[in-house]
């Protein structure tokens, strides 16, 4: 059965299944969300107004049998945080279930005329709208629980917490994990506020009895997924008991600290004396010592990397899942906090209230610099999450993220690009990732062009992090390959093995070609990624962005970053090279 577009209109509470038009037919995941936003959303619209849309798309291979680590869902819209196009993607249960219902994308549009809130239930028989007034004000822990009690078959629950209901710009979209916990987030860019502005508290997806994903060439698909699986299982980073499986993404804490690139105390230093205490090694030690929780946790069924974790408190009770490197940076080193139990408690607040942990932690750091509390004040930081939970005026400011909070406190050191705060790599110490932050179609985003692989990890080659040479091309190549991988439904972490193992790269492309019946090989990955980037870049241009927006904040050009005491010195001309091809 051919894939369908499910269009849900909240103005008249209608749902229609449409044939996928030719112009979108080849896309999945991010390629599809960006193509739909590009075609259907006015670039100058207000992100919270009637003309924005939220598009939800599983990747090409999501929901197919035995494609490894392929449960990523893309969420797209015009971002209320950045004003740019946005694709934010998440693990959890949603991708495979939407795919198995034969749905290529869900387009959520319009706004209820009566101002009411709804939940939406989707299964093989269609779409039901339900009154969600009983769920208003509830955190995602309770929403997930209620939905699993209300519906059989352990459905996917896509939802927003109170921060999304209030339409604040740090609102993320939660997806439940296989144990029905709310830790999987399309966190970045405030897309939870876009969902809230459609009057939708939750979307529940039950795939039971669905048609499944049509595979055009099963033999080619099987050949591809086997090559990819083999590469993942062979690579030191992604194999069983390898770096990611044993320690999670927070394996990077000590390493980036060692390299002098760990954002610390609102991006004023690249090294944190307490890094070891909030590292992946410490997470593993706590799990072992407290005889509770888990490392090597899977965020979606069929993941063979299993980099997630479940973090236990001193009493053996679970505090939160997962504690990621990004989280430990934003809520830890960047706030001067060296206590994992507190990092986990703040993560729990983020997961329940519906916020991106990166933006939330960096916002607390800005409040610390603004004098609201001291760096390292963990009790004080936790108390700020209560303000956000209650929706006090201060809590609402903090819920808007770094840029709004920095303005409220009159700060100059504001580590954002296009309104989105920087993730866990200091661009003054690692230049390529700075090129990605500056030029990405998404604002400051590490996942959109992860040059850390060759700059720090020695994956996909080896380049000097401090050097400027070749960084425009490096960033563009990573941005393009990422746009493709974000379209597959595979986790971006497959990039590590397939950058080093060519058969894995081929296998990824063959598995996609097998499902879609497309005539593509590994050589098409970067060119197809560039097609996606072109749509995103043109959308941003039409929204009013120019190359002058592709810059890092001024303070990074003048304040040397310890311990290497380097400044951001990549010339503007280098940054302008990255997207020069769009109009060629």
């Amino acid at each position, binding site marked *: 059965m051919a894939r369908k577009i499910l269009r849900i209109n909240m103005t008249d509470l209608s749902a229609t299944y449409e044939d996928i038009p030719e112009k979108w037919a080849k896309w999945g995941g991010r390629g599809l969300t960006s193509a739909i936003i590009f075609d259907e959303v006015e670039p100058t619209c207000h992100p919270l107004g009637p003309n924005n849309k939220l598009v939800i798309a599983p990747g090409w291979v999501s929901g197919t049998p035995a494609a490894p680590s392929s449960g990523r869902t893309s969420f797209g819209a015009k971002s209320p945080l950045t004003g740019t196009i946005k694709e934010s993607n998440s693990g959890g249960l949603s991708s495979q279930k939407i795919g198995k219902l034969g749905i290529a994308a869900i387009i959520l549009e319009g706004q209820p005329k009566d101002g009411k809130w709804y939940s939406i239930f989707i299964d093989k028989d269609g779409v039901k709208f339900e009154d969600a007034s009983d769920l208003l004000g509830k955190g995602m822990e309770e929403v997930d629980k209620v939905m699993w009690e209300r519906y059989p078959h352990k459905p996917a629950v896509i939802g927003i917490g109170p921060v999304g209901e209030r339409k604040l710009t740090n609102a993320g979209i939660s997806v439940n994990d296989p144990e029905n916990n709310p830790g999987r987030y399309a966190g970045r860019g405030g897309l939870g506020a876009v969902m809230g502005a459609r009057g939708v508290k939750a979307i529940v997806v039950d795939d039971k009895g669905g048609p499944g994903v049509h595979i055009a060439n099963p033999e080619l698909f099987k050949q591809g997924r086997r090559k990819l699986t083999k590469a993942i299982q062979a690579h030191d980073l992604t194999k069983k008991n390898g770096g990611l499986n044993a320690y999670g993404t927070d394996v990077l804490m*000590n390493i980036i600290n060692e390299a002098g690139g760990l954002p610390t105390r609102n991006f004023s230093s690249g090294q944190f004396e307490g890094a070891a205490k909030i590292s992946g090694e410490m997470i593993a*030690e706590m799990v072992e010592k407290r005889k509770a929780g888990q490392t090597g946790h899977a965020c979606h069924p069929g993941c063979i990397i299993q980099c997630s974790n479940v973090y236990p408190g001193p009493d053996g009770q679970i505090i939160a899942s997962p504690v990621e490197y990004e989280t430990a940076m934003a809520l830890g080193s960047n706030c001067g906090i060296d206590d994992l139990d507190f990092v986990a408690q703040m993560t729990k607040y983020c997961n329940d209230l519906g916020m991106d942990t990166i933006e939330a932690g960096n916002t607390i750091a800005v409040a610390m610099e603004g004098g609201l509390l001291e760096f390292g004040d963990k009790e004080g930081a936790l108390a700020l999450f209560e303000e956000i939970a209650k929706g006090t005026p201060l809590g609402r400011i903090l819920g808007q993220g770094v840029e709004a909070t920095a303005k409220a406190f009159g700060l100059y050191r504001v580590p954002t690009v296009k309104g989105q705060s920087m993730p866990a790599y200091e661009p003054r110490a690692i230049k390529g990732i700075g090129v990605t932050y500056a030029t990405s179609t998404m604002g400051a985003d590490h996942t959109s062009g992860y040059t850390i692989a060759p700059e720090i990890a020695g994956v996909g080659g080896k380049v000097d992090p401090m050097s400027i040479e070749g960084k425009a091309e490096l960033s563009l190549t990573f941005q393009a390959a990422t746009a493709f991988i974000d379209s597959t439904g595979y986790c971006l972490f497959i990039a590590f093995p397939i950058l080093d193992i060519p058969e894995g790269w081929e296998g990824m492309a063959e598995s996609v070609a097998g499902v879609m019946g497309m005539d593509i090989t590994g050589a098409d990955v970067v060119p197809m990624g560039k097609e996606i980037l072109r749509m995103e870049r043109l959308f941003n241009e039409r929204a009013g962005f120019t190359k002058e927006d592709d810059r890092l904040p001024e303070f990074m050009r003048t304040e040397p970053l310890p311990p290497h005491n380097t400044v951001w010195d990549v010339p503007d001309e280098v940054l302008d090279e990255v997207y020069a091809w769009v109009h060629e």
Partner: protein
Amino acid sequence: MEVDVRVFATLRRYMPEQGIGEALRLDVQDGATLGRICDQLGIPRQEIKIVMQNGLQVDFDTPAEPDARIAYIPAVGGG
């Protein structure tokens, strides 16, 4: 001369006495290379993906500097 050596993640099993992120103060021959030092510690070179001295990436042939902060790092990544 003396140097501080740190190992991380899966390499910690070669320096089990050291806590997480804790340095081992090591007496080495003047001008010993970083490859020589990891050999001395019994850390197999094939398990080392990155060698750092004072926060900069170097290689096994680089001579250690007095009081250097040396780190041996296996395959890592994340995001």
